[in-house]
């Protein structure tokens, strides 16, 4: 079982590395956006899946990353090319710094209240981004330098590999967290926070760490996206649909598992893009989202990966870490 999973992961990784060499450059943007959501859903899973704190406001951190990188690049006068991509970690650091006060407030609440606080944060940020014209350009948007010399057949390739690197980073961090003592504490908090505290788990510090790490990863991905689209507007980068998409993908694949968010993103994002391309601006993919949401709630409350794991012969000892829930929905 474990060997098969490793083999599948290696094949997937090799396939992802080689994809730009074999697909038509005109459709590589599907790969860019799919990898973006692999990273986003995986990063969200660290706080939402492992810790059980369902943030619907992570699009706010995505937007902070997008604006932060644009502002840094503009301030430093970095020309288009690889330079802005090298500054992506700075966008992550700025997003992490912004996540500290947000987490300090939001993580004092739990369950539905936490969800509402994170949504409120995202909309406040959107309003701020619209109104702080001197900083963000307001509704006029904030421009990135356009890469010079990257032809139409090549322009997606650097962004593809940047997104691939960030997705791999998010997966690496998620894997590390999950196998660590920190991760065990997060899973305990997810199951019963009061009892975890009574057993010595520093719940506030653990949650804060998960929240900030998750936000920083999302912020870095937001930075690359901002550069990819070259112009960022409040309603496009602080978009509730981005936040909902990463959550839905994680739940579809299996929140609280390592592979679940990856699977969810690989299934949902290409389907969403296909609908968007086929039906133009009708936003029919929202209907798909609603349908997927209903299917997940009704048929796969724990997501695909935990449901599959239950049907395969496996070591029961490994089962517990994956978010398998004998009592109901994850």
């Amino acid at each position: 079982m474990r060997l098969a999973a490793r083999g599948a992961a290696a094949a997937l990784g090799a396939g992802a590395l080689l994809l730009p060499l074999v697909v038509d450059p005109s459709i590589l943007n599907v790969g860019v956006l799919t990898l973006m959501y692999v990273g986003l859903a995986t990063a969200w899973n660290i706080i939402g899946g492992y810790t059980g704190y369902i943030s619907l406001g992570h699009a706010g951190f995505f937007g902070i990353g997008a604006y932060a990188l644009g502002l840094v690049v503009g301030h430093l006068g970095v020309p288009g090319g690889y330079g802005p991509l090298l500054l992506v970690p700075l966008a992550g650091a700025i997003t992490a710094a912004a996540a500290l006060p947000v987490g300090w407030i939001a993580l004092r609440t739990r369950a539905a209240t936490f969800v509402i606080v994170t949504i409120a944060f995202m909309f406040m940020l959107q309003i701020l981004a619209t109104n702080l014209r001197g900083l963000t350009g307001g509704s006029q948007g904030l421009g990135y330098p356009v890469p010079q010399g990257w032809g139409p057949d090549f322009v997606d390739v650097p962004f593809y590999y940047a997104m691939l690197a960030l997705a791999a980073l998010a997966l690496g961090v998620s894997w590390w967290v999950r196998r660590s003592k920190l991760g065990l504490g997060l899973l305990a908090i997810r199951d019963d926070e009061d009892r975890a505290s009574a057993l010595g788990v520093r719940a506030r510090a653990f949650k804060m760490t998960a929240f900030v790490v998750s936000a920083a990863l999302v912020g870095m991905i937001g930075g690359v996206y901002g550069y990819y689209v070259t112009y960022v507007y409040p309603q496009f980068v602080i978009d509730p649909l981005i936040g909902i998409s990463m959550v839905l993908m994680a739940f579809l694949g299996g929140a609280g598992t390592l592979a679940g968010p990856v699977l969810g993103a690989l299934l949902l994002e290409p389907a969403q893009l296909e609908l968007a391309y086929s039906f133009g601006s009708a936003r029919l993919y929202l209907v798909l989202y609603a349908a997927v949401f209903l299917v997940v709630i009704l048929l796969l409350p724990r997501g695909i990966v935990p449901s599959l794991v239950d049907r395969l012969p496996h070591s029961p000892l490994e089962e517990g870490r994956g978010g398998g829930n004998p009592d109901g929905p994850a």
Partner: protein
Amino acid sequence: MALLELRAVAKRFGGVVAVEDCSLAVAEGTVTGLIGPNGSGKTTLFDLVTGFQAPDAGAVTFRGRSIIGLAPDRVHRLGIGRTFQLARVFPRLTALENLLVPVPRRGLLGLLAGARTAGEERRAREMLDFLGLAALAGQLAGRLSFGQRKLLELGAVMMARPDLVLLDEPAGGVNPGLLESIAAAIRELNGRGVTFLIVEHNMGFVMDLCDPVVVLDRGRPIASGPPAEVRADPAVLDAYLGA
């Protein structure tokens, strides 16, 4: 000096008086029973000791040091463990992982290291063996029976090697076979030097296991002493046992 001491502790929830002018001491090495009718403030007292609630008045000391205002995890690190009324485990973790959660680690590097060292896992398996749950190590805790969860909860508390353990109704809803296992585990751990404060409604369990016994009524102690003495106390008979 008592291991745990409460002096004139009071706690109100709005107009409801949960605990009032409550003073009691738990001596080191004892298994102290805390009994009383429903709503007499027993669980609130546990919450006050373990940092889940802050008292409105009075003092709570552990080894002579005030523990008022400390968060539950800090109280735990001082050496006080507790269980909850309804056999709370981490249902989506295995029995083994449930025992690994409370094992303390030092520093950031300790938290970032693997969830289990070989030594920690060996200790957890020994604890499962001691509790008679060795065969269930890989089982999700949520799939265990109620009594097995009670045992696992006790085991988890013991993994941090506490000096004082507060058990909230360890016998509640447990079948007679497992009840004896729980009592035997408590006796064995007490023999190793662990002090217990036990809230329990099962009088046979309390009278067999605990000495002294403290009786709480309407948030304040009305009697305390050896089980036989408490059992014969007219105030206790009137408030609780005589019913």
